[in-house]
């Protein structure tokens, strides 16, 4: 078991005027190698959840176990845990600060106290993984485009070789091409490590994730394999979410009497079924 949460709650600004419960008794488990998408309306507690899993925030009650390390309210010194769990924040490009891309990517491995040679390997590996070629090594991060910055920042986390990679809205604010490229890189990583990501795009979650967690107002309202989630149109709309366009199309077609067995949600599947019919 790579990740366990049990009755985890988190409250911002406890005992004050601004008190807000961000997470309310959440429980789930994630196996190593799984790819999990987290969806939910703004303010549903998604980002808080990721920060808890990395030990940046500690649960007010409940119990978290990540890669064998337990996190409770009183846990201290989580440096070892952060080595195992990489967290890419929303708009991660603001974390770039070094003179060159290579130096910036080396920041994480250097903090781990690795040898110069090993750092070099890690930087190379991480740049390959996100598709930045050698010409970027000596460039200043400020010269890069938005999408390239994003990938450099993700490389900075990958260079620590985490066993679990978590991304908070990795494609937010990118143009369609940058988005497409990044999704492709994530697909490459899929299966190699435990991948947990937040997204507002249903298409994206449908494409990348195997399993989806739906959060609403700090509660876990649904935890299902990806195909089953998109059968729950009512629940999703109730919590302010939507089906992927293709799934919505199939839902409407089935309402009008078309005999499809399920809501297909991927563009390719949808096209195939519509043109050639279902294969059983």
């Amino acid at each position, binding site marked *: 078991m790579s990740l366990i949460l049990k009755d985890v709650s988190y409250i911002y600004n406890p005992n*004050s005027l601004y008190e807000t419960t961000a997470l309310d008794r959440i429980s789930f488990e994630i196996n190593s190698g799984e790819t999990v998408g987290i969806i939910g309306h703004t303010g549903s507690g998604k980002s808080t959840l990721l920060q808890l899993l990395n030990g*940046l925030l500690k649960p007010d009650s409940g119990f978290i176990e990540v890669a064998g390390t337990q996190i409770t309210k009183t846990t201290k010194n989580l440096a070892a845990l952060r080595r195992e769990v990489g967290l890419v924040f929303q708009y991660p490009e*603001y974390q*770039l*600060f070094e003179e060159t891309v290579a130096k910036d990517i080396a*920041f994480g491995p250097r*903090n781990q106290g690795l040898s110069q040679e090993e750092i070099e390997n890690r930087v190379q590996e991480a740049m390959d993984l996100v598709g930045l070629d050698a010409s970027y090594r000596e460039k200043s991060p*400020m010269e890069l485009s938005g999408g390239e910055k994003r990938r450099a920042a993700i490389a900075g986390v990958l260079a*620590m070789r985490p066993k679990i990679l978590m991304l908070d809205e990795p494609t937010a604010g990118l143009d369609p091409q940058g988005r497409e490229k990044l999704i492709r890189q994530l697909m490459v990583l899929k299966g190699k490590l435990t991948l947990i990501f937040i997204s507002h795009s249903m298409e994206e979650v449908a494409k990348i994730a195997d399993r989806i967690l739906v959060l609403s107002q700090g509660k876990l309202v649904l935890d299902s394999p990806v195909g089953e989630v998109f059968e729950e149109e009512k629940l999703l709309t109730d919590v302010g979410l939507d089906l992927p366009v293709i799934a919505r199309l199939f839902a409407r077609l089935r309402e009008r009497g078309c005999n499809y067995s399920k809501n297909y949600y991927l563009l390719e599947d949808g096209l195939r079924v519509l043109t050639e019919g279902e294969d059983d």
Partner: protein
Amino acid sequence: MIKDMTLGQYYPVDSQIHRLDPRTKFIVIFVYILAIFFLKEPYQYALLFVGVFGVVRLSKVPLSYILRGLKPILFILLFAFVMNLFLTPGERLWGFWKFNITKEGLRLALLMMARLFLLIMGSSLLTLTTSPIKLTYALESIFSPFAKIGFPVHEMSMMMGIALRFIPTLTAETDKIMKAQMARGADFESGNIFKRARALVPILVPLFLSSIQRAMELADAMEARCYHGGEGRTRFHELRYETRDYIALTVFVLFFGSLLCLPKII
């Protein structure tokens, strides 16, 4: 971490004190701070404490909330207390080795503590009950006579308003960057002072970059809406003295007048 600072943060509730004209509060606090240093007798301080806690009650800000905000300066208070206690010459009460506590020292130490405490209570009451925007309006209004001799009052108060407005934004931003670097294994808590100073670089560089970026965007946004300085500019919320301001000022003058006159009468 940084978010725990409550000292001087606006506490948004509705109370008589909140509704006072910010200029009234400014003038009262100014005189109050001056007056604190004229008080010499312990009973004057006792009365002042009663007065201040009365205002706290009226302001509907929980006392525990204000006291929590005092935590960061607790050290300064204690330091002043200890220094005065041991370093004042006079009649010896108690002592060991080279350290002596004198009667004068004890008195001075207690008075100094009370003064500092009242000073901070008073000024945090001002900021707790007055939104930053109102504070700058008040400053601009109080200093407006200086505009006649060419002092850029409006520009200064606009700058101050913008600075105050962006404190929470910058705090949130710092928190975010710190967390992002911590996730990459950055360590801000161990090592000697040089190591710790160097550990701040990964926070400061992104923070400066985004601040400059934000400043330019704000300037563009203001110009796009035809901002051109104070000349001929009107306000959506005009400051106007109400009955409660006159009542507050009268109460204040009577209270302080009698407080200062008491020693002469007794």
